[in-house]
């Protein structure tokens, strides 16, 4: 039975020293700093291994650099930009639309993800594609509740404290999270903006940081986080295998990978209803509520293009994770995949 490797509770500033990182903005509760480092620019990174052969490989490369954008076929360079535009335009109404489209059930799914994660005070979480902060806020609530319970238990056990100790407890700036920290990373500025607004409105300050970054090229050092989550984000990534490899890299040995994503429905009747609902109702909802048909058309199509539970499990295993399992929620409309980075690789 493996356990998470605990980290010392460090101060939540981020040093962008990874050689593959690039210019980015990092926003912490205490201010912001701009970190520029690394010599490689994004976009120069090629998806397929290119030798020094050049022209001879080009015709084969052409087919390899096309991918899907919903049911459209686009080049890989285009896809990133198009996905960015989709989320830029849906950002403001993202939460409202999530509630409307899933009839509020997405909240239960996200709660179940946290429940599966069972973080304890001191956990360092990286939430990728976590733009509007749903997972991050749930994480903070969870560890705060855990920490408070732990404190209560401690106090009950220590019945004979001296007056100095009691006074010290009241004077100390109690870290209500017990050293836990969550880094929210997203490629889209608009989504991060909405997330930060929500954090301010709901009063989340400590233990939270917002980073602009690409899941395929994370701006973090190796072996840094206890848990990596990506909720409803990985299907929008152009190179899913790269995102999985990055996840493996930044996790500490013993760390856990958790992915909450739409998947294939295993019940045939529900599958048909789900299809009708997805393709008939959701774009209409998008048009009426958000004034944007095409983004929601893309969203439902991208769900169909995502690999099945078993295929995705294999992809996670290919990236180096072990003990990979998945759990279907709501008959497979959504699945939580989980994997562990062990010492062996």
């Amino acid at each position: 039975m493996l356990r998470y490797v605990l980290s010392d509770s460090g101060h939540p500033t981020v040093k962008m020293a990874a050689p593959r990182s690039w210019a980015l903005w990092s926003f912490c509760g205490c201010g912001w700093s701009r970190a520029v480092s690394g010599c490689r620019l994004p976009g120069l990174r090629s998806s397929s291994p290119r030798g020094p052969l050049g022209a001879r490989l080009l015709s084969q490369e052409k087919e390899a650099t096309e991918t899907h954008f919903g049911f459209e076929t686009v080049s890989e360079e285009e896809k990133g930009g198009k996905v960015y535009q989709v989320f830029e335009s849906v950002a403001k109404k993202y939460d409202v639309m999530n509630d409307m489209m899933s009839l509020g059930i997405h909240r239960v799914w996200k709660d179940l993800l946290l429940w599966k994660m069972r973080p304890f005070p001191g956990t360092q979480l990286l939430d990728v594609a976590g733009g509007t902060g749903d997972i991050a806020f749930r994480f903070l609530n969870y560890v705060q509740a855990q920490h408070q319970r732990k404190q209560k238990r401690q106090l009950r056990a220590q019945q004979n404290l001296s007056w100095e100790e009691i006074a010290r407890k009241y004077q100390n700036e109690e870290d209500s999270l017990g050293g836990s920290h969550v880094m929210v990373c997203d490629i889209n500025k608009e989504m991060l903006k909405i997330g930060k607004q929500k954090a301010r409105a709901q009063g989340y300050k400590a233990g939270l940081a917002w980073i602009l970054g690409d899941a395929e090229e994370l701006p973090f050092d190796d072996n840094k986080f206890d848990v990596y989550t990506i909720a409803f984000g990985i299907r929008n990534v152009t190179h899913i295998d790269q995102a999985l490899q990055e996840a493996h890299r930044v996790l500490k040995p013993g760390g856990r990978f958790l992915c909450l994503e739409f998947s294939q429905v295993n019940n045939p009747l529900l599958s048909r209803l789900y299809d009708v609902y997805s393709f008939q109702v959701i774009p209409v909802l998008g048009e009426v509520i958000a004034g944007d048909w095409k983004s929601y058309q893309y969203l439902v199509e991208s769900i169909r293009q995502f690999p099945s539970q078993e295929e995705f499990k294999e992809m996670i295993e290919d990236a180096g994770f072990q003990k990979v399992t998945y759990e279907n929620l709501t008959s497979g409309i959504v699945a939580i995949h989980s994997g562990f980075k062990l010492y062996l690789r």
Partner: protein
Amino acid sequence: MATLLRGVLRPLCAFRGGPGPPAGVPFRAVSHGTGLLYPEHIPTSVLQKVLLAAGSAGMALYDPYRHDMVAVLGETTGRRTLKVLRDQMKRDPEGAQILQERPRISLSTLDMGKLRSLPEGSFGCAYLHFLDVNRVSPDTRAPTRFVDDEELAYVIQRYREIHDMLHTLLGMPTNILGEIVVKWFEAVQTGLPMCVLSALFGPIRLSAQSLQLLISELIPWAVENGRRAPCVLNVYYERRWEQPLQALRQELGITEPPLRVEGLA
């Protein structure tokens, strides 16, 4: 229920085009590829049109600033009426010319310099004055998306684009009261369900005083003018910039408004 829906949706398979969805998945609106009748076209099934009509009607009432919802309502409910309008246009010589030449009204197609140089009292000058005073631009009209016929899509686009011309001819500003009056005129003229619904439900948010003015004077005037005037879609406005406004009004049988609406509502 699923089979019933599929029976409804199957005839619309003609709209499929491009890299299709995986096999075994029922039809849904495929909005890429070769199924498009015009650039902005989004093919929709009957169920989607019904949902869109209901949703847009509700949203337009809930948030009156969602003009795009009024447009969507017009597109999804107007199929039969648009056919009637299109046939009316075909029968009239000027209307037929419009259908053939397909003129569009936008800042790029209007010669603003020429319009500005026109004499005071001409239609073009009055139109420009209207745009300036009300701070609107002909480019704010959303393109048609949900009409599944290319010619009808143009007809409704033309109807939207001449809306400002009607404001000018009727002498109505763009406040709520003015818009309702123009909608009544359009409802009588075109019979589009969207116009009728807007005309009937638009006044819900008006004050009692405005409502009283509307019912006692403005609506009867608008209805009377709407009945008297020939189909306004048949007027080639782009050729009539130099025509004096009064002459054009007389030609269409439009009288002066009974009271000034600028300061009201």
